[in-house]
């Protein structure tokens, strides 16, 4: 899934660099990568969402 996310980011960056007319699509891809990143981290941390220290 990390590979997929980096591909999405690469495509978004490519659009910014080479196809600035596709700005909206590039931004949507950036948002999608953020959502995927958040989801994957939650997947890894769902056993203890808060930092595992004494409170």
């Amino acid at each position, binding site marked *: 899934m*990390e590979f997929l996310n*980096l591909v999405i980011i690469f495509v978004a960056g490519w659009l910014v660099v080479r196809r600035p*007319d596709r700005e909206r699509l*590039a931004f949507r891809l950036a948002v999608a990568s953020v959502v995927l*990143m958040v989801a994957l*981290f939650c997947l890894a941390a769902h056993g203890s*969402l808060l930092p*595992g*220290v004494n409170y």
Partner: protein
Amino acid sequence: MSKRPLVYSLVCLAVLGLLIVPVGTAVFALGFGAGDSPCVMCWEERIGMVVITLLGLFVIRFGPRPQYVGLSVLVAAWGTYMSLRHTSMHAARDVGQGFSIEILGAHTYTWALLIYWACVVMIGVLLMMTRKEDWTVGVRTPRGLEKLAMWVFLVVVAANAVQAFASTGPPPFVGQGDPIRFSFNPRHWVWSMEEWKPSPVSLRGRWGIAKPDLATANPDPATGPFSDLVELALVEEKRLALPLKGGLPTGLAYDATTDRFAISTEHGLHIVDAAFARVTRQTVIDGGFSVDLGRFSDLAFVDPHTLVIIGENKSYVTLRENDHADPLRNYRFFLESADRFDEVSRSRLSTVRARMAYTMSVAFDPDTKSLFTISIPNETVQRLVVSRFDRGDMTLSEEFLPTLSEASGPALRGKSRSLDELYVTAATVRSGVLFALSAAHGTLLAIDLETHRVISAFTVPAISQPVGFAFKNDRFYVLCQDSRLVVVAAPDLGSAGRPGAARGTSHVPVPLPRPAPPSDIR
């Protein structure tokens, strides 16, 4: 902003710095060079940094529009959380211990915390330099440094994608908790679905341990782990009519030298006479001042005029009687009677096997000058642990799990039963034997402190929710949470208990010591 290339140059430098230093170093030097593969959390932290650089490219290309700056702040905030969550897994370990590679004395996840914090600061600085007209600057043509930032971005992201494919695989494979060393050789690639396995969602995970609750302990001896226990003979039962302050009773201790008892409440201490007829001295402690003492769970005399009171959280306070205590100096420590005690010390007991477990008992052994605590088993630490602390420095000196002897001692009802079912809420030491009273099943354990074996076990009649336990003149005194006092005959352990059982029962008065000089060991 388009007329202010300095601001764009700063954005370019920030993007390049983030791409080259943490992200580029991670993929080229640590990954391709040293064979380091990120764990699943490291991957997301790295991707968060890459997304911030991507949003930096948006700013370079289209100007600092609110959605770009806003999203970059959100990602930096999320990254701070991610790295804090990740660092917390290892932050409490011993010096130098961590996960994966250490760089300049800190592990990578710790650096991530600093980098995300720097991102937030940098974004704030750049935001202060923008003007409203910058929002609608249109598509900008990149030049010089801006072009460099864009191409470096594409190269670094492409390299990360290569590493991600080798380390984590295509979807739906996902990063691993313990990643395999990176290799360009496909034979060494391990793609995992481990993180997809369902498991409970929790806010605090193994740290979400409930505080002790006597109501959860099943008092019925018939359902306890032991079979055929002898019931101690009931001598007396009465309800105390003492004016206790600071909440419900939580502990009981006896000093043979002065023939006095001490009773702790949730936040208070009371010295009472031998007949439990009157309180001769009392105080209520400010448990929230300095070290959080929590709710007191038990207490012990460490000399005729000094007591250690322990909280459920294994924090403790040492108090010494003083008829000449300075109430002004002691104002900070006590909510009541600041002129009757001095606070000698207040700190925390550290345990290893009993870590992550609360305690409701403390006992003092004058022979070894040691304090003993017994853990309350919970979902995380499902075992009954005895911890010994040296009175001199209050440092952990021994920890053990009491064992049962197959040849002698009490017998379990079955192989599935264990000592861990007990809920020890009170304890005392007598002649080398630790007596531990469990609120669950009303069971009293006698644990030999040399062999660590349970040499005997009994049931105590007429008790419910016991909180305090003391020995005096061949009798055990059990204080219950409802202020009932139950007196039972102490068992004869024969040769198991070491000689000197009657030690310390003389009633020779000991004068109150002169006030100690103020000690600031907090």
